[in-house]
């Protein structure tokens, strides 16, 4: 394995450095060695990226890997394969496994499994409360020592305001963000899709927008009061985006993220009762989609994430109310974001890539997301004009639960490099062969 890799002729976009120009990128010993005219090849591997974009490795800060507990749906290894196939060099995974990742040993387990997989970086997010039950604080300090990058009870919100306030006060001393799945469980109770005309027509119990909005509003006040860094997971409502916009103006330390399905699909898609459209937060109205797009365009929404949520066929293939919530997305997210944001002109490529590189890196406090000299050589090469059709049968993920089958997308990652090593190229995965057993 050559220690020098030269990527030539690509359009190097590094939003953190404000760079957008055709240049060569030289990688040596797992780090960025030079940007600009490259030295003569001399034994180095050369990748010709003419016509392609060369950017910092993409970072997805909201992914569900089902290990431990539901390995049939996804393992850490298969999730990493899906990630690098989607152009990601780093992913942060949520703790709603069985058992939950709410202690030091579980954090270490995730790191160990990721190392065995030998593909992308995996950063575990620890639970806020023990067992994600929303009652007692989890051992945040010890989890941070083991390498947790943030805390969340994702899958649920912390329903009790006093518990959340205590958690925010406690977390503040570590400087790591609390990520909240904003959903008041009482307002959402029993719901399986967005409350509204379609739910009424279909006779399905609804999750009202206020279930998300009331929790965002509450948490912004608590975050302001405690000074804790706060991040709203997968915002989906117009009201929620507006609250976050106002919170930022007031100086609250708040960031947020959005998923591709909340930029492209509405609750009307549920009309066929296809459980591939069942997700939490649910698909909302066209007005909410417009508000989320506007939120991305004006910077209210900082990061773009997949909320990759795998479920096996046997779990999803049941009646709508009983099916689990979740849509996978690691392997299609980039193409979907291009369709939602670049093609209609809401964002340029540098602005889009910023929300998938430096922005999530900053939220999680990672020294990633940039191509400056000396930085880790996590690089993604994207063909921005590649037309392709989504075929879930060829996914690296163990699961196939998404509504995008047959979609024609534009833009696809062609090469994913982690620490200077090619992990994914031309549709094939290359794990490290020197991984621990």
């Amino acid at each position, binding site marked *: 394995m050559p220690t020098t890799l030269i990527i030539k002729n690509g359009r190097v976009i590094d939003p953190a450095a404000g760079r957008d120009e055709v240049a060569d990128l030289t990688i040596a010993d797992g780090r960025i060695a030079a940007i600009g005219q490259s030295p003569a090849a001399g034994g180095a591997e050369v990748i010709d990226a003419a016509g392609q974009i060369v950017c910092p490795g993409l970072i997805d800060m909201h992914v569900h890997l089902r290990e431990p507990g539901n390995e049939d749906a996804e393992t850490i290894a298969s999730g990493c394969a899906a990630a690098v196939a989607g152009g990601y060099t780093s992913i942060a995974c949520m703790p709603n496994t069985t058992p939950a990742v709410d202690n030091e040993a579980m954090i270490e387990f995730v790191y160990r499994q990721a190392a065995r997989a030998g593909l992308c970086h995996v950063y575990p997010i620890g639970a806020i409360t023990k067992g994600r039950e929303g009652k007692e604080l989890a051992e945040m300090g010890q989890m941070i020592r083991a390498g947790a990058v943030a805390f969340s009870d994702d899958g649920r919100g912390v329903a009790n305001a006093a518990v959340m306030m205590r958690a925010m006060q406690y977390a503040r001393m570590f400087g790591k963000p609390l990520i909240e799945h904003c959903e008041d469980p009482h307002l959402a109770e029993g719901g399986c899709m967005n409350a*509204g*005309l379609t739910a*009424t*027509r*279909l*006779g*399905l119990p609804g999750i009202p927008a206020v279930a998300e909005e009331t929790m965002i509003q509450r948490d912004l006040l608590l975050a302001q009061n405690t000074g804790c860094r706060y991040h709203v997971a997968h915002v989906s409502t117009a009201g929620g985006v507006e609250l976050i916009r106002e919170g930022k103006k007031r100086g609250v330390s708040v960031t947020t993220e959005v998923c591709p399905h909340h930029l492209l699909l509405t609750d009307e898609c549920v009309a*066929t*009762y296809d459980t591939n459209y069942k997700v939490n937060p649910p698909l909302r109205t066209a007005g909410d989609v417009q508000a989320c797009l506007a939120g991305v365009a004006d910077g209210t929404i900082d990061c773009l994430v997949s909320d990759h949520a795998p479920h096996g066929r*046997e779990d999803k*293939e*049941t*009646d*709508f*109310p*009983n099916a689990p919530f979740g849509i996978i997305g690691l392997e299609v997210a980039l193409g979907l974001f291009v369709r939602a944001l670049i093609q209609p002109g809401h964002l340029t490529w540098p602005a889009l890539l910023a929300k998938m590189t430096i922005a999530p890196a900053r939220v999680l406090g990672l020294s990633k997301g940039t191509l400056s000299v000396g930085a880790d050589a996590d690089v993604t090469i994207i063909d921005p004009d590649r037309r392709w059709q989504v075929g879930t049968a060829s996914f690296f993920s163990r699961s196939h639960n998404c509504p995008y089958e047959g979609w024609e997308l534009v833009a696809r990652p062609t090469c994913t490099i982690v620490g200077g090593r090619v992990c994914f190229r031309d549709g094939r995965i290359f794990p490290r062969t020197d991984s621990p057993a």
Partner: protein
Amino acid sequence: MSTTGPPLRDARRLVAAAGGTVRESMIWPHRHLLTLEDLTAEEITFILDTAEAFADVSTRSVKKVPALRGRVVVNLFFEDSTRTRTSFTLAAQRLSADVIDFTAKTSSLSKGETLRDTVRNIEAMGVDIIVCRHSASGATHLVARNVQCCVINAGDGRHEHPTQGLLDIYTMRQAKGRIEGLKVAIVGDVANSRVARSNLHGLRKLGADVTLVGPTTLVPRAFEQMGARVCHDFDAVIDQFDVINMLRVQRERIASNVFPSLEEYSRLFGLTNDRVRRTKPDVLIMHPGPINRGVEVSADVADGQTSAILRQVTNGLAVRMAVMFLCNQAAAGAEPH
């Protein structure tokens, strides 16, 4: 292939023989009946006309015709329901079909078999029609996606109960001679009612004026976008209606705080003797059953002259015979020769 006797081989001739008018080119195209929302006004009318032709069968001393002889009908009921299941069973038997009951408690579902596997296994035994009731909205869509035989929705969650909607409309047409322009009220727990939704779709397509009456917590504004008027003051509008269809109210709803007590519900929205005095003299009172006497309707009203409740039950048989006959025709027509 079909084994129907000469007078019943063709629904069109059937309807014409019963004195109905029928478009010569109408061939029933749907092997399933899952919703009324997906049918056209013409199709709904055709089912009602076919039902009229079958109504006569129930008055004979030998209450059978051979239309579905040799066919197998399975009642696949995941929710308890004696009356609907009995109605479908009798309807199928009157068409000379063989009927099998499959109830959830005694079934393999309690052993963890999925809905999809259950219906495919049943179909593999060679059944022609599955009549399915399930507590999840959309479950019958799932069933229909997984089998080739006919699927008739006997109620999916809160979504639709198409044969109930049809028999309700049939009863209204029978009493009033028309549906177009008829002023109909549907009163009660509309939000959770598949009967209300099916009624609303069918009545709107045939041109009726529908008002939904009930507490704000059970009759949300969204229904206005489905073509209904929404009203929370029964007394203010009660004298406007030609038909009042009362829905059943469940005590269990109190726990979800949609109304505080049955007494309060009954005072505000029950069809008490007092309220009945203020209705139109020839108003038709209906209820899908079973009735909570003293809650939705007073005993006097339930047993009174204006009540069509028992007629609904009788009409249910004819409607279900028509539906099974037509769906079977569509499936038979699609079979290769």
